[in-house]
């Protein structure tokens, strides 16, 4: 198998998982779990940017979307309720 095809296949698989993680994050009622799903999606995007040969975006995406953003949202959730109510 050609390496290019393999990388494109991996990217497709990662993209599929990221969409599922986004769906779960949107529909989840427990906010802490929703943040974790969102962080999974961010981690996959970081890999995708790397495979798309955009290292500049990876370097800003890893600290912001994988580290700072979930941390800030968890900080805020700690100040409110853990469950989303209808």
């Amino acid at each position, binding site marked *: 198998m050609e390496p290019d095809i393999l990388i494109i296949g991996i990217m497709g698989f990662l993209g599929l998982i990221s969409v599922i993680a986004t769906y*779960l994050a949107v529909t989840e009622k427990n906010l802490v779990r929703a943040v974790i799903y969102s962080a999974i999606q961010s981690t996959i995007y970081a890999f995708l940017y790397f495979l798309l040969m955009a290292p500049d975006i990876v*370097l800003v995406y890893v600290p912001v979307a994988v580290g700072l953003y979930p941390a*800030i949202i968890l*900080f805020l959730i700690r100040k409110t309720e853990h469950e989303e109510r209808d």
Partner: protein
Amino acid sequence: MMSRVVGVIVITLFITVFSLVIALGGLGYVLPPESVRELARQYLLIAYNPFNKTFTVFSPEVVTSIVWDFRGLDTLFETVVFYLAIIGSVALARGFKSSKPEKDISQYGLSPIVKTVTRVTVGMILAVATSIALHGHLTPGGGFQGGATAAVVPLLVLVIFSRYYLETRGVSKNAMLAIRSFGLIGIGLTAFIVLIIGLMSGMNAYVFQNQPKPDAPVGLPALFDGQIISGTLWFFNLFEMFAVAAGFTIVFLLLSIPERDVFKYLKEEGGEY
């Protein structure tokens, strides 16, 4: 719960079928071309071209050349947006003061194992952040990337030690505001430095100019002691790192003020009116 499982299956099937249809040419073959586009080719040629000294940035890193030279004003106003966002949160939290610690500072936070590991990794994160920012004109990275990486350090210390520990180490809101102002003043000065040199030497120069241009023969040196610094790019990256890291740290410090202190302050404030 059941509806979410059905939702996941539907999404997976939809994406798989849709990808298959596109891969088989169902929407025609509109894939991106394999060769580099003309605009990108021009940028790649111009970014580092020592044979045409009046039409280059002297930076092998094309993204940083675009961000801080070709569209430098755009990045300046992005920095201003970030500045306004931080100013907004500082204004919202004006007057809030954190209470004094009730017990010994070392008793706050997580276990000693986590604290020891953090002590080791904090140095490494800072080293990587500095490297990302100061090599931003040579390798992928830059001021914002380095600053965001450096901002992970106060966040880790805040969660694993406590905000009191951070404050005893001198990381307070006012100190961070001073560092951020230093970074922003530096960015502003770097934007005008070539114009100031041009005015002082009586030659033509532009705002946000980096290397000499045919009608503006002044510019910052591309090399310093034999090392490439790409004129203004190195300074922009350095100051942007300070501004971004300190800005993020201010937000974390404000968010970490306990709710009861905020309510206490708001009650006192309301009593005055």
